[in-house]
């Protein structure tokens, strides 16, 4: 290894260490409050990808910084650089590392994350909630309890919930930011998504606990939102019992 490349390697190690420290320190600020078990899988994947990205970023940045500082000429260069068109070990190393990294990313957090989400979705469902979008509001039905709500989405904490999402007019999307879960509402078909609220809370204290339309649907797209309230199981049952039953 040439001395110059050795310096880049040192620079790379320093930048990587600093970067990883930054990721660990900043993740709590970067990733917003989380209110569902599924969100954990998403956040873990997010953190893993950041940790994997840091050395890649650091290497390119180290090479760039070193090359610019070391090889720049003030004024017009009077000579050419060496006629180096290729460098076997460097190219081989690069191809190997980039391929290996890609495979790692695909397997973890990609496929492992997908499997974790599927395993989580496959658990027994405690509650079914039908969510129907129309411009520009959401109709929320609890078919097991014959309850309909149009002004808020109320959920029990720790219950495993299947959301059955549909649309009566154009595309919409069901998104609860603090659950990290999203699925489109497509006219003519039903889509499903699962979530297990992991703590109580409500929109009034955190805007991310909201059911937001996330697919452009016209003038009031941004306003197509209902607050979410996650209650203790008992409180949830009380809430259900206070609602008007429909058939």
């Amino acid at each position: 290894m040439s001395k110059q490349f050795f310096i880049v390697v040192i620079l790379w190690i320093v930048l990587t260490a600093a970067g990883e420290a930054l990721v660990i320190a900043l993740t709590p600020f970067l990733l917003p409050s989380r209110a569902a078990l599924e969100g954990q899988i998403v956040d873990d994947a997010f953190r893993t990808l950041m940790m994997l990205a840091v050395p890649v970023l650091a290497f390119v940045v180290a090479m760039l910084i070193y090359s610019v500082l070391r090889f720049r000429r003030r004024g017009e260069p009077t000579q050419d650089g060496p006629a180096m068109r290729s460098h076997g070990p460097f190219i081989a190393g690069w191809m190997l590392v980039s391929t290996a990294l890609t495979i790692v990313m695909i397997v973890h957090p990609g496929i492992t994350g997908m499997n974790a989400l599927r395993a989580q979705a496959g658990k027994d469902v405690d509650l079914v909630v039908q969510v129907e979008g129309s411009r520009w509001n959401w109709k929320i039905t609890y078919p097991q309890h014959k309850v309909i709500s149009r002004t808020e989405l109320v959920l029990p904490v720790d219950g495993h919930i299947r959301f059955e999402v549909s649309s009566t007019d154009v595309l919409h999307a069901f998104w609860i930011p603090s659950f990290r879960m999203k699925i489109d509402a497509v006219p003519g078909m039903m889509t499903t998504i699962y979530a297990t609220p992991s703590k109580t809370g409500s929109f009034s204290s955190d805007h991310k606990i909201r059911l937001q339309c996330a697919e452009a649907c016209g003038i009031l797209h941004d306003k197509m939102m209902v607050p979410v309230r996650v209650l203790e199981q008992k409180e949830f049952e009380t809430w259900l019992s206070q609602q008007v039953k429909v058939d």
Partner: protein
Amino acid sequence: MAALTGIIKGLIFALIGFIFGGGIGFLLINAAGRSGTNEPVIALGYLFALIGWLFGAGLWDAWGREWVGLPARKLEVNGWKRYFRFCTNHKVIGVQYLVTFVFLFLFAGLLAMLMRTELIAPGQTIMGPNTYNTTMSLHGIIMIAVAVATIMGAFANFFLPILIGAEDVAFPRVNALSFWLLPPVVILLLLTPLFGGFDTGWTAYPPLSVINATGSLFFLMAFITFGISSILGGLNFITTVITQRASGMTWGRLPIFAWGIFTASMISLTATSFVAVGLIQVVLDRVAGTSFFNASQGGNPLLYEHIFWFYSHPAVYIMILPGFGIILEVITHFSRKPLFAYKWVVGSFFFIVFLGFIVWAHHLNTSGMSDYLYIPFMVTTELISIPTGVVFLSALGTMWLGRLWLRPPMLFALGYLFNFLIGGVTGIFNADVPTDIHLHDTYFIVAHFHYTMMGGVIFALMAGIYYWFPKLTGRMYNETLAKVHFWWMFIMFNVTFIPMFWLGINGMNRRVFDYPEALGGVNMFVSIAAFLLGASFLVFLTNMVYSWLRGPVAEANPWRARTLEWQISSPPPEENFPEPPQVVGDPYGYGIPGSVHAVLNPAGSALNTGGG
């Protein structure tokens, strides 16, 4: 006036065409007993107006007359007037594209300033939601057009033939046709606000794009017309590279920019027809009442998403590959070293074209498509990091031990590498299905694609402009202003778009006119940064306009670069090369004593093009 005769004739023919086509539409509506819509009138009117426009603007005189056995009329005029005429010279068309698209870019940039003004604080600030949606959608589609067509239309037209030692492109008249298809695109887009605007964004997803205001029909027709232009351009460049290379210009000696254009053209030629079909189906749903995407009559909105992205993902490589070409070109010449790993790069370009076609469903990660599709598309998408990495390998390897000359083109190339790195790395978060379930359709995506399109394509475009300006105009720009532009744009670009990643993760979805109060502070920061970013283009514009008119006369080869365009005068002579050049070596033979790329007058004395 003589300059404008073609345009005026085109407009008159367009009007006649519109009345004719619109009349047919009107008769059809009545014959079919349909009521409550005038869109068939508009659609058929436009179809014939487009044909009228093209024929009037020059297609008939330059070409059509031959179809009926008449001699074609020569439309060539001299001097500045030719830039307003149906002119088949590739250099004129290159300049027509460049000027048109730089103006469109600045216009769409102004729209972005309006959007950021609206978003500076929660609630309504300066416009209503419908105006916002139209502004956002117009900004999007114009910028997409800028990213797809500026480098191809301007630099591939002007420089590709010269780089390969040719006199012109393979089909000069087709080339002019692809440019003259663009004014109707611009006019249609500018008309959209008068017809209720359109609120779908540039993706035009049905059913919304079927049921919204008539402005949407104008947008759809504009997009289709643009697609035709893009297909013709792709066809032309592929043929040009295959058939017009000078003697000795083997495939292995092709400059890397030519490879970028060649591979990107393969995509425009083959993929664009898919989006055109999807859009035509939407138009038919609107105009003829078919139900391709109408679920209540058996149509399927999800189908559109597949068709649309089957084009639009490859389309991002129509934007990116020519940019890669420019960047690598600039980096070799300004490092004074041969392009590192040339063959690997060319191979990667082809691999990107191939992979680009099998990743489209990563845009459908929350669409409700079959569950087993997610992993295969995640795999193909993440594989693209490998060939993309090769471009970085080549750039870094080329600079290593080089003699770096940090002139404005090189600064933009270096800025590109940094921005595109961020764009590429954040792309992984979108390719990874678990994270994309959260990030899809949020400001995270907005930040990501601005990093690739603005931080990438536009930086490459700027590198190209500052690299080729002396050759294009025969004048040199102001170096200090150019450097000020670079640092200002580079810093403010990053300051503007980095916080958007955070906004997306923290619950701001995209295409919104308003957002939760809690996100107000960061949005205000982003808006102010965006205004400062926008202001950097005033420096650019001043420099360009002033230097084009008054700048010092440029040398033939201010960079001492080895490729062919720098071996002829600035600006190049009408026929490019007085006689066909003879290519005898590699374009990047820096550091090899006595290495020669081409001999310009093979018959005469050995006036050759060494390392300078």
